[in-house]
């Protein structure tokens, strides 16, 4: 008996003896007859994104881009955030004065898990928004940070620019291919705050991830 690898591959080849030797994977037809692009106008797409994100019990605000710094400061104050986690590459003008900032990833230094756990929240941008599902996509790019930053703090304030919002999921998957295939970066889909429905099927917010998700859609 050979290695596990050889044995499993041999078992697979034996099990698929009915497949003609000349058949290539691409010879097995895959019909992609589903929609890959939405047909709606921008305005409708952005509206739908806002509506669906809110349905997950996230707080959503529509903001004029020039008002972002003010609205961010107001949101943090409402929430009572004193220690704010800031990922590398976040636009400087978003960061309000008067809060203690915990900066991660600048000149190679990292916050500890303890720092993150002791913070009051995190402010990030995002890679994409998906209107069809009300999903925010993070790909560890600039202004988003590594995964732990948006996981350990209890409050996540996320800025989504209108032109980052796509209509259908296939559009998002296509746009993310580079970050995954070429850069090998981690991707996270976030659709509302953390939830469970395991106790008599009642959806309970926040078992592990951030229990409050606030989204600012800027355009």
């Amino acid at each position, binding site marked *: 008996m050979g290695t*596990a690898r050889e*044995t499993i591959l041999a078992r697979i080849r034996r099990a*698929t003896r009915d497949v003609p030797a000349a058949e290539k994977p691409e010879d097995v037809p895959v019909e992609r007859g589903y929609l890959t692009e939405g047909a709606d106008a921008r305005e409708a797409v952005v509206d739908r994104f806002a509506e669906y994100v809110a349905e*997950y019990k996230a707080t959503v605000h529509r903001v004029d881009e020039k008002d972002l710094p003010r609205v961010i400061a107001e949101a943090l104050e409402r929430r009572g955030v004193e220690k704010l986690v800031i990922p590398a590459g976040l636009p400087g003008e978003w960061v309000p004065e008067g809060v203690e900032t915990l900066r991660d990833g600048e000149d190679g230094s990292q916050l500890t898990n303890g720092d993150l756990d002791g913070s009051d929240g995190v402010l990030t941008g995002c890679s994409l928004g998906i209107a069809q599902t009300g999903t925010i996509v993070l790909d560890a790019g600039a202004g988003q940070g590594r995964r732990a930053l948006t996981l350990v703090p209890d409050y996540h304030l996320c800025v989504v620019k209108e032109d980052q919002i796509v209509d259908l999921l296939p559009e998002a998957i296509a746009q993310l291919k580079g970050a995954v295939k070429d850069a*090998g970066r981690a991707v996270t889909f976030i659709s509302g705050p953390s939830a*469970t*429905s395991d106790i008599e099927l009642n959806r309970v917010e*926040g*078992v592990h*991830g951030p229990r409050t998700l606030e989204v600012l859609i800027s355009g």
Partner: protein
Amino acid sequence: MTLEVPDAFSPGKTPKFQELAKVSLADTQLRRNIGKAARGIREKRAVAVEELPDWQELREAGRAIKERTLRHLDHYLLQLEESVRKAGGQVHWARDAEEANRIIAGIARDHDADEVVKVKSIATDEIKLNEHLESEGIKAHETDLAELIIQLAGEESSHILVPAIHKNRAEIREIFLRGLDVEDLSDDPKDLAEAARLYLRKKFLSAKVGVSGANFGVAETGTVCVVESEGNGRMCTTLPPVLVTLMGIEKLIPTWRDFEVYMQLLPRSSTAERMNPYTSFWTGVSEGDGPQEFHLVLLDNGRTNVLADERGRQALNCIRCSACLNACPVYERTGGHAYNSVYPGPIGAILTPQLVGIGKPGPDSLPYASSLCGACYDVCPVKINIPEVLIHLRGRVVRNQQSGDGLAGTLNPENVAMQIMAKTFADPALYERSQKLARIGQWPLARSGTIHRLPGELSGWTRTRDLKPVPEKSFREWWRERKNGEG
């Protein structure tokens, strides 16, 4: 309710579905909880699915991609292995449960870990990883709320997706008071969740090794994906410095692009949401982000048995959404424990006997745990024709029993009938027609609710066993009318 019996993956004799179902049917709390849950999810799922105008096209693509993958599984596995290695991960191959357990325990030991944090995974349940780690002095902490409840209660889960479906809040409060070291606790779901959060957060922040399953693995890029609700999957796959992922070899998809299909099919089918709260995709090791050591363990453990059956192979398409469980009238009445396997419900009835091999009384009884109503096929997002495979497996079970008697299985009347039925089930229209025919044709023959003899081709089937009459209105017809009536 605890059933002290070895499950289908244990060596030796295991009880039959019919025996276990009797125990479950007697438990009214269990039936009430499961009934409520199944009805709730079923209705919500239909709404979520109707929102997508291209649902049938997505299903067809979901099926076809899996068919392509399975027909060329060796090719894609080798591609996956190479992609994961290039991305900085390590790949291990495990022929069976024992080998997988050994590999995972070995990794934990290499890091002097006496505990690991785990995100719910059916594959790790299948190989009984927790028990094995325990025997090596390593404590595995389950981190889903439901799994934590099950673990503290010392039971096995009863539902793929909502494992604690058979516990009500008062019972959960009791379990937490005993297990979590808390002084005082109400039975408000919110408070119960908070108690679990505090307890588990400590574990996440200190664990050296995280263990997960995988919903998908991508051959082209080496990306592994975990779909979840609570955030414990993100915790387990992000915070510990070392991550071990156990993935059944059938979880493979060829390309990154294929997520455009499965990430539409899975959430709507499983939790009836447009999208589940969190989905993590990682590709090997990313410098400075998450675990800096990643192990992917590829598990066979009977999957190649399933692959070898041309007709039964489609059971490997399964993306574990659990829609077929919620659609199943048999499951709704008996609950998951009756299936005595980590794979309950209609999918379990076709997967378990193939995984462990035909010829074991417990698993052999599972293909009979169905009224063949076809509701499971209708909801399945990857179009697994469960009724067809059920009939086919009944044929295999019978053939196997007869070969033991020295009889040629193919000559057996039940077997011939089974093969005809299998053909009929392969075509839904033909199936409904035959059911209608049977209903019209049977009434003079039915006595005291049981048919003793059927005319024509099917008569061999009743020579050996009493057959329940076809109901006045089949579940399929009823289901369709009901749907139309509502829509």
